[in-house]
Every structure is written in structure tokens, then in C-alpha cells.
């Protein structure tokens, strides 16, 4: 089963990390990703810019463009992974590996993926 691992955390707390702390977290997460890649179990990984950079489009007869994220919540969607896991238990284990590597609070939401197609058209990019 393919899972989306949606990363939620308080972005004000994450934003208060020092650049060194932030880099260290990314480095540890990268180690976990490398292991998954070696097993051929990881797809696209994305870290999102802060929700202040977000725009929301409300669907409707006339689509409405709003500033900010979709929902005002305590924790924000900060990024996501796509991982291949045999079952939920394996997905939970992988998410726990990521959690240990990140060492921050927040949560991961595991969402089984319904449809996935990797066009492979995008090069790797940092912001």
C-alpha cells in the first residue's frame, strides 16, 4: 500500500528553531529517507514554505481566492512524504522512525493513497 505521510507541527515552534537546529533535524530525517530509498520504498518528499505564503482557493461557481492556509489550526501542514509500506503497521513503524529523527512535537497523519502517478517531470529543488 502506498501511504502519504502528512507532517503536522506548530509552525511558530518550528520557526523558533535556530538555523543549526533546523539543519540538524533535516540531516537526521534525510538519513531515514536514504534507508527507505535503498529499499525502493520512498517517492516524492516535500517541505512546504510557512502558511503565511499560502493561498487558498474556495471552489464554487466563482472560485474565491483567500490569503493564508485552508484552516486556522494549532498545527499546520508543513510537508509530506510518499512511502510504500506492506501494511499500516509497517507505515506506523516508518513514521516512528521519522518521529525519532525529527525529535520535535507535532504529528504525522498517515493517509493511504488512492491514486498516484509520478510524471517524473520535476527536478529536485530547494524552495
Amino acid at each position: 500500500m502506498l501511504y502519504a505521510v502528512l507532517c503536522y507541527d506548530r509552525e511558530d515552534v518550528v520557526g523558533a528553531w535556530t538555523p543549526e537546529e533546523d539543519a540538524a533535524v533535516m540531516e537526521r530525517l534525510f538519513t531515514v529517507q536514504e534507508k527507505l530509498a535503498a529499499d525502493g520504498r520512498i517517492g516524492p518528499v516535500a517541505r512546504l514554505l510557512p502558511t503565511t505564503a499560502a493561498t487558498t482557493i474556495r471552489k464554487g461557481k466563482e472560485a474565491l481566492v483567500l490569503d493564508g492556509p485552508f484552516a486556522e489550526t494549532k498545527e499546520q501542514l508543513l510537508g509530506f512524504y510518499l512511502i510504500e509500506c506492506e501494511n499500516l503497521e509497517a507505515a506506523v513503524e516508518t513514521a516512528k522512525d521519522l518521529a525519532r529523527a525529527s525529535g520535535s512535537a507535532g504529528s504525522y497523519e498517515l493517509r493511504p493513497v488512492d491514486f498516484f502517478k509520478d510524471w517524473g517531470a520535476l527536478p529536485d529543488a530547494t524552495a
Partner: protein
Amino acid sequence: MNDQAWIEAALTAARPRAVAALMRYFRDLDLAEEAFQDACLKALQSWPSKGPPRDPASWLIFVGRNAGVDGLRRRSRQTELPDEDRLSDLDDVETPAAERLDAADYRDDVLRLLFTCCHPDLPATQQVALALRIVSGVPTARIARAFLVSEAAMEQRITRAKARIAQAGLPFETPSAVDRIERLGPVAAMIYLVFNEGYTAPPQQGERAGFAEEAIRLGRLLLRLFPGEPEIMGLVALMLLQHARGPARFDAQGAVILLEHQDRSLWDRKLIQEGLALLDKALRHVRPGPYQAQAAIAALHARARSFDETDWNGIERLYASLEVMEPSPVVTLNRAVAVMKTRGPEAALEMIGPLADKLDGYFYLHGLTGALLKQLGRHDEARTAFDRAIALANTPAEAAHIRDQIDSLAAGQQAAPAT
């Protein structure tokens, strides 16, 4: 990341909202700060074993409120009966913390706290010191080092600023929509002041360099509370785009490297992308303002792959619109730099001619005048302008830069006499 680092980040992030809510509750800045300190101590005791709360700010507000009320009761027993008016909504002490945690609730509190720090009676440096101390929680000793005064002197300055604010009376009524918008202006200006304290400092002055990041955090906080204000988007975009150049702006000795000579590969792409994204959002509103215009100028520099590829026509147009929005001789001076690129030194010289009186004591005017005259081959006049610039230089690096100009003037004169 270990517990300690996470807790520190959580306390830092929660501070503005928590202190702001406690200030509304106690109607007193000092009491609010004390209560927050108490709550932080309790957090340091309890979070490592019990795990962090889901909403650190509301935990701190709840615990801080109880600690503050206890403290007031203890004190009043020693002096007089508690004055009920000192506390607002005393009856909701027992309200579960979870009930009062919406971002909308925090909005007025945080805006009030920020607005308090930029009281018009306070000089700019005091506004900056107060915001760093109260809103960001920067230790007084660090602020003192940044401003090159003793800790005692800074402590006294902050105390005096607080007394002045208390005297003026804090605006505790719920602001109207118009009040909110009116308060945003001075708050944005104060945040930009904090940013500039950090931006102008070379990395060797580590104390101040961190202030730019504090200002960006405050800007993002404000933007989360007011997500639809294009000028706040512009302010944050401007700070991000300027700060992105940080790693390229000073050499190892702390001397300024001009935009022209910066190694653009050192610019922080991540900050630039975020700045450009925010500016994009702001421009969709078609409600231009000075921060958006300045951010747009910074964006044109950020987008240019080299100094020579800079869109000087675009920059000149933006400075021209900034001149209309916020007329100032300094803006005109900056516009003249763009004019020099687009229409040549003569046109630029003509543009800054009328500024001579207003900016006579301004280093950059004489520096630019000298550079323009030099380009026109008027070397004797250029030297006079450069001499004047050196006399007005704010830092040894600025003086050194002008001295280089004079040297090249002398060398150029020998090699190729002006025609």
C-alpha cells in the same frame, strides 16, 4: 532535537501570545512578564517528564494566570485588600484553557502588546529595545551589548519606557476594525526598525545580527494574525529578501561588500523564494504601499543573476512610485542610482542637485556625487565630493571604500587624462 531545545523553541514561540494574553488579564506589563516567567519555570519542571502540552501558549497562559493571581493575593495580604478592578474577568480563572485558544482571540492581544511597544512618545531605539525585551524575550544583557551600553543602563531605559507607557494608559478596550488597521502601521514600522538594527550589523557583531531574524519572526506572527494585509506581506517579503543577502554582505573583516561586488551564489535561495511568494500574494490585492514597493525593488535585485543583468528601468519606476507614496530625499537619491544606470551620470547628477541642502550631512549623497562626477571625467570636483564623503563616513569600511575611489581617480588621471 533534544527536549531542552524543543522546550526552548516552544517557550520562545509562545511568548508573544502568552505575554499578550497575560497583559490583558492583569492589565499590567510587569505583572504579565512575571507571571510568564513563573509559568516558564513550571514548564521547565513539568514538560520534560510529562511531555509537552499540545498547545504550549495556552498552557503557559493558564499556569501563568494562576501564578500571577497567587502572587497578587500574597502581596495584598501583606499590604491591603485586593483591588478587584486590577483584574479583568477574574471569574473565568477556572475556565478550561482549551476554551480560549483561537487565533482570533490572540489577534487583539498580540497587536496590543506590539502596539504598546511603539508608543509615539518613545524614541525609536527605546521602541526597539522594548519590543526585543518584552515581545521576543531577548535578555536585557544581550540588548545592552548590542546597543553598546551597560546592562544597568539598558535596564533603566527599559524601566523608564515601561513607566512612560503605563502613564499613557494601555488601550484595553477591544479595538474596532479601523483601530486595528491604524495600529498596524506603527507596529509594522517598529518591526522594520528591529530588522534594521540587525541588518546593518556585520556578522561579527553577533548580538545584533540575530535581531533581523527576530524581526522576521515578529513579521510572520503579525502576518498569521492579519493574513490579508498586503502591506504586512510586503514588509515580511522585504525583510526576507534583504536578509537573504546577509551571507554575502560583509567580508571576513566585517567590511561592507556592495551589491555590485557580492557573490550572489551566497544569497539564501530559500528566503528569496519565500519573499517572492509573499510579494506575489501582496501584488494580487492591487493595494500598493511603501513596503510592497521596497520589496519589489529588493525582488528585482534578487531575480537578477548578475549586477549587470539588473532591471534598472524597473527599479527606477519603483523608486519613482515610492517617491510619490513616501517623498524623501533618500528615496530620490536611490532613484538617482537607478537613473545613472538607465540614463547616464548626467541625468542622475541633475536629479540629486536639489538634494544638496537637505542631505548635506549625508555620506551617501557625497559618495554618489563623487562617483557620478568621476564618470563624467570631472575629477577635481569628484575629489572634493569624495573628501566630503570621507569626513562623513559612518564606519571605517565606508571610509576605506571612498579612499579606493580616490586612489582609482588618481590612477585614472595618470593613465588617461579626462577629455
